[in-house]
């Protein structure tokens, strides 16, 4: 087990190198220039732009730039943004809490919605409740988040004027008011992300419970006189959760993807919106750092999913 973990971790290193090389090459070769705005502004002499490009090393050949990036990464130096001239790690750390709060709550919401509904649907398959839940779940995962986001804004902010649609990271006020304001503005982004997640998770949960509930040990539990509730919680749901947990872990990168779009719509100042603005501004160091973090997340979460699986189901062992 530990050997397996060690081996998987060691493999991550060359994989990350490969990913970073591909990312860097694509970013550098893509059209665009971080100082483009300077070129279109007749008030700024072209020398300034040439000077900045030389100063930030943009005119060097690709291998030199990549080697420099790797070398400074090794030292823990993420470089600085060409646009704001702020260190990249500062920029990311500033925004990470917001993203984590929004994504965490969305995930929590998804679990809270999906598990009871999925279980109940499986207990009464093809009942009216199940039909409705299934229909909603299908609607949920066929609608993209950018669409549901706009729909929510139109309905809840503009039509009904209940919720603000611009997310503010610094809200003045203390105590309850502060929490209240935060909850109010987080409702829509969290709901959009969480419900999209919940949709697929409900389907998964339903299938898992259906599989488990027919098994002999469930009948045994019932036969020995356990109450329906105990049977359900201790024997059915617990075992049905095994595949669902791995699903959650594997889906973490997908959620980050959805967060990019949602953050842009609701102006949530997280790393997703940082990525979008940096791509638009051709701010290579920031794009590089954020995409690199995302790829680390993908690798680590798939590793975590594998490990969790082994831990939850003792029948599986890795060598």
């Amino acid at each position, binding site marked *: 087990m530990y050997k397996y973990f060690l081996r998987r971790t060691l493999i991550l290193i060359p994989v990350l190198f490969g990913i970073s090389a591909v990312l860097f090459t694509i970013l550098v070769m893509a059209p665009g220039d971080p100082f483009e705005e300077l*070129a279109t502004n*007749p008030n*700024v002499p072209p020398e300034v732009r040439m000077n*900045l490009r030389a100063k930030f090393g943009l005119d060097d050949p690709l291998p030199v730039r990549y080697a420099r990036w790797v070398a400074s990464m090794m030292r823990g130096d993420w470089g600085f943004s060409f*646009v704001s001239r702020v260190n990249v790690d500062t920029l990311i750390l500033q925004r990470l809490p917001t993203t984590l709060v929004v994504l965490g709550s969305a995930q929590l919401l998804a679990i809270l919605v999906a598990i009871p509904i999925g279980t109940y649907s499986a207990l009464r398959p093809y009942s009216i409740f199940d039909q409705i839940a299934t229909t909603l779940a299908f609607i949920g995962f066929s609608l993209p988040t950018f669409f549901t986001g706009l729909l929510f804004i139109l309905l809840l*902010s*503009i039509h009904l004027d209940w919720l603000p*649609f611009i997310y503010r990271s610094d809200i003045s006020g203390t105590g309850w008011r502060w929490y209240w304001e935060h909850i109010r503005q987080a409702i829509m982004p969290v709901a959009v992300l969480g419900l999209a997640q919940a949709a697929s998770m409900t389907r998964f949960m339903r299938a898992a419970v259906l599989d488990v509930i027919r098994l002999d040990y469930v009948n045994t539990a019932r036969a020995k006189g356990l109450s329906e509730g105990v049977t359900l919680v201790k024997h059915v749901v617990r075992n049905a959760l095994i595949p669902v947990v791995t699903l959650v872990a594997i889906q973490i990168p997908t959620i980050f993807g959805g967060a990019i779009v949602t953050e842009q719509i609701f*102006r949530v100042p997280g790393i997703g919106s940082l990525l979008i603005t940096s791509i638009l501004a051709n701010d290579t160091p920031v794009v590089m750092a954020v995409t690199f973090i995302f790829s680390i997340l993908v690798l680590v979460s798939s590793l975590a999913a594998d490990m969790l699986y082994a831990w939850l189901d003792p029948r599986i062992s890795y060598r």
Partner: protein
Amino acid sequence: MEERELRALVGQVKAGTLSRRRFVRMMVGLGLTAPMAAQMLAAAGVAQAQPKWTVNPTKRGGGGLVKALWWQAPTLLNPHFANGTKDQDACRIFYEPLASYDPDGNVVPVLAAETPSVQNGGVAKDGLSVTWKLKKNVVWHDGKPFTADDVVFNWEYVMDPGTAAVTIGPYRDIVRIDKLDSHTVKIAFKSPAPFWAAPFCGAANGVIIPKHLFQAFKGDKSREAPTNLKPVGTGPYKFVDFKPGDIVRGEINPSYHVANRPFFDQVEMKGGGDAIGAARAVIQTGEYDYAWNMQVEDEILKRLEQGGKGHADIVSGGNIEHIQVNTTDPWTEVDGERSSAKTKHPTLSDPAVRQALNLLVDRGSVQEEIYGRTGIATANFVNAPSRFVSKNTKWEFSVDKANSILEAAGWKRGGDGVRAKDGKKLKFVYQTSINNPRQKTQQIVKQACAKAGIELELKAVTANIFFSSDPANPDTYSHFYTDLQMYTTTMTQPDPQRFMDQFTSWEVSAKDNKFALTNKTRWRNEEYDKTWKAAETEMDPVKRAALFIKMNDLVIQNVVVIPVVFRPRVAAISNRLRDAVQSGWDSDFWALAYWSKA
């Protein structure tokens, strides 16, 4: 418009028969800038109007929070690194210039005690120097006094090539700055400077940073200054918090140098999202008080305005959507580049074809059907109407006229309906960036041209590529490897001299200069060059204005460009906000200290 006529008009303003505002409008209509017009009046001794505010509070503060929304978020707070208006605006909350430009182009003193003029001895008669008296008792937010040393330091800071300041433009013309006393500076120019109010004025170039916090970070170390992210200025608001790409917050400066200002206790500038969302937050839901640069279709703005919480504020500025007509041949390669200045366009070099094209751009329909209030049909990139009465536009749309001009010049229709002469067909490629209104405009032009026997092939390039400065990409606007191209050019700076660079022969964009120079049409004209040079050192503002109008005439008569619509600046403003007037020549926050709420 001759110098004589201009003088007569200035005389009328002086005598009071022509209003100051109307005069400025006329000059803007002639392709000049409001600050230039104001300068003409100042030189003639017409007293400068002070901006008037509708609300004059009797105490400082008490207004609570004012919330502004910029759909592009500010990313940095050092004004000398700030190229985009979003960053310049964010800096302007905390920092101030010596003077700002108001909507009429007046130079309004901010950190200066008075506006220099020839009359008060501030501006030297020969134009070689200008003397600024600084306001006394101004302190930086950290309590240190603001003095002449700060002004001198800013020049040194910007001029250091290691700093790579984007504000360097107007400072390069300064030869020396003398500190006459602790609150007086004399700026000496290399050559007579007709527009002396460029350095140290306006938000784009003139904002002043404190010497005591930046002197250790001049040149190569400029990036490391902690004050880059925590500005300490002289402005109405003190720095509270900044998250690059997201939000800037400020709180009232209790020792601000203007009495009873500002009104609001805190200011917040939130960034990100899209223009329509921003318009909605101000105009429809009233969540925000002010939003900048509403690049939103007029139809949508009108619909939002019905809610009644806010409105779109439209002022003229210097943006013109125009079509450029290539003078070189984009289809023949010479020395490894197309559109080489060594070639001549096979068909567009015929003036008749250019005239016809000019007649085939239906600006009226473009305005009516696409831009509405946010794009006004114009002939005036630079175009002078022959008489003043029609104060703005004198464009014409006529397929018949275009047809007869082409017919007379010997361009005959072929079997496919396309005109040709000597085997050369009137077929052009017309490119622009991908942007819905632009594609609609292309269609309108294409249809009209088809009726006159000119075939247009439309090409649309992603904005990221079209406006990129990559010398290796043939699809950029600076390569101009097609016959026609369309985009908006911005004249943000209050003096047109640098802007008019783009038609001089030494600015021809080419492979040798990595396509970095400004003359994209590659048009060359000796007379134009001479006029441009004359304007550079002409000290009499009226004579200089006449020179600019002449340059305008040359460009329009030769159909080097075809102006389409003039694009005013549009902001969304809450109906409760007072005095949040846009300047058109300066930052949206130029009067932030005077904003108030009903």
